[in-house]
């Protein structure tokens, strides 16, 4: 049998799901919509942001919400010199693990910066809110360097 040429076809696969949040994630997202960042207290007292429903160490259901600051410190980061189409910024930017003031656990988000020379572990950053908030992680457009 003769081999054929490679036949290919570009296509887009869409999963248009609506997800139930539950009371813990729902509370965090509701607060984001109101431009506030909320964490939750773990069994050992650490404040986890964004809040988890269950303690990763003890599996205990968590419920004690704690408001945290919208400023924090970079714990680790990387520099995306060539953003991918799906990324939230189309110019070079940093992904960072950010420990917000009042939190004990770092969260992942993006940091807008002109150059990677401006970014450093330990640098202070502040949340920049979207013009319109919906109760989504992307209500924080990015963090900016202070």
């Amino acid at each position: 049998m003769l081999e054929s040429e490679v036949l290919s076809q570009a296509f887009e696969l869409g999963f248009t799901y609506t997800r139930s949040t539950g009371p813990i994630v729902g509370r965090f997202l509701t607060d984001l919509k109101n431009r506030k960042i909320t964490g939750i207290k773990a069994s050992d007292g650490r404040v986890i942001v964004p809040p988890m429903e269950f303690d990763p160490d003890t599996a205990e259901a968590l419920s004690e919400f704690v408001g945290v600051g919208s400023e924090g410190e970079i714990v680790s980061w990387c520099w995306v010199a060539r953003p991918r189409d799906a990324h939230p910024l189309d110019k070079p930017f940093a992904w960072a693990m950010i420990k917000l003031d009042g939190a004990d656990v770092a969260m992942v988000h993006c940091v807008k910066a002109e150059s990677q020379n401006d970014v450093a572990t330990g640098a202070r950053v502040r949340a920049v809110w979207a013009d319109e908030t919906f109760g989504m992680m992307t209500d924080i457009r990015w963090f900016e360097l202070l």
Partner: protein
Amino acid sequence: MQKIAIVAYSQSQCVPQAGASNEVELIMPRLQEVYEQAGIRNAQDVDFVCSGSCDYLQGAAFAFVSGVDALGAVPPIKESHVEMDAAWALYESILKIRMGQAESALIYGFGKSSPGELPIVLSQQLDPYYLAPLWVDTVSLAAMQARLMLESGVISESDMAAVVARSRSNALNNPKAQLAAQVSVEELLREEEFVAPLRKHDCCPVSDGASAMIICTAEKAMEWGKPYALISGIDHRIETHNLGMRDLTDSPSTRTAALGAGADSGPIDVAELYAPFSHQEIILSRALGLGDETQINPSGGVLAGNLMMASGLSRIGEVFNRIISGDATRGIAHATSGPCLQHNLVAVIEGAA
């Protein structure tokens, strides 16, 4: 406990694009090769079949069901599938044999990652509320992990490059490898950064392909009369999905799995570690306490070619090959899944004697 033997293993060439070949066409040659090695006719001659794959990689819904077309499932066979690396299909197969439900099993894994943008596809395995909507890719997460290692002084960029140099050099002896070369640490460090602090060579390439294995009870292996190695232990452990709550510079789940598998009950001649990023090989060998007596990733590891959903099974196969060839008498194989080494499996493989 029932002793489990590996009697056959085959892996395809790691290629950046398998071209036209569909899942069935990737799997079939591997199956034919392991049937031949084990001296059996087809999947009807084993008691159980289990595969590992992920349909998201190629965006083909139920590709894993199409994969069954490679098996010859008439009359119907006992078959199962994990949406994970086939190393976990091996784990399921071992349980099946130990429960007394089967004496032999065929395991295969396949991945055709080239049709999609793999790091972005994999971003959708993250927390669907907090991380997936940001589209943070797996390379970036690994880069942040690498920086934690670098800035805490645990490793240097030269250490990372040394891992890559050894991988490329070892891969020269692996005809299935995608990336093989004699290259120095200095040359590697002169390359530009990709997702800083990672350079492109710190990241495994995207490869298409498949691998397959046949295991059975030690009695069955003797009956078949083929050379075999024994899986003396296997265990897997997972850590929290919350990256901020993990110590990303260590891999406690690997350490616990290794203890569970009995890795510490003898010398380790060879270790095949599934480290998709150079710094992760260092995390793993530290967690496993590997020293100079252990040859690490003689195949080149996945930095030389990474078949998503099959590379974990291939690590076990690579150790099996070295035991059969007499290069090693006892070794460990490691498989991983999830971002930044979240979920880890360790198997101990020994000579039959």
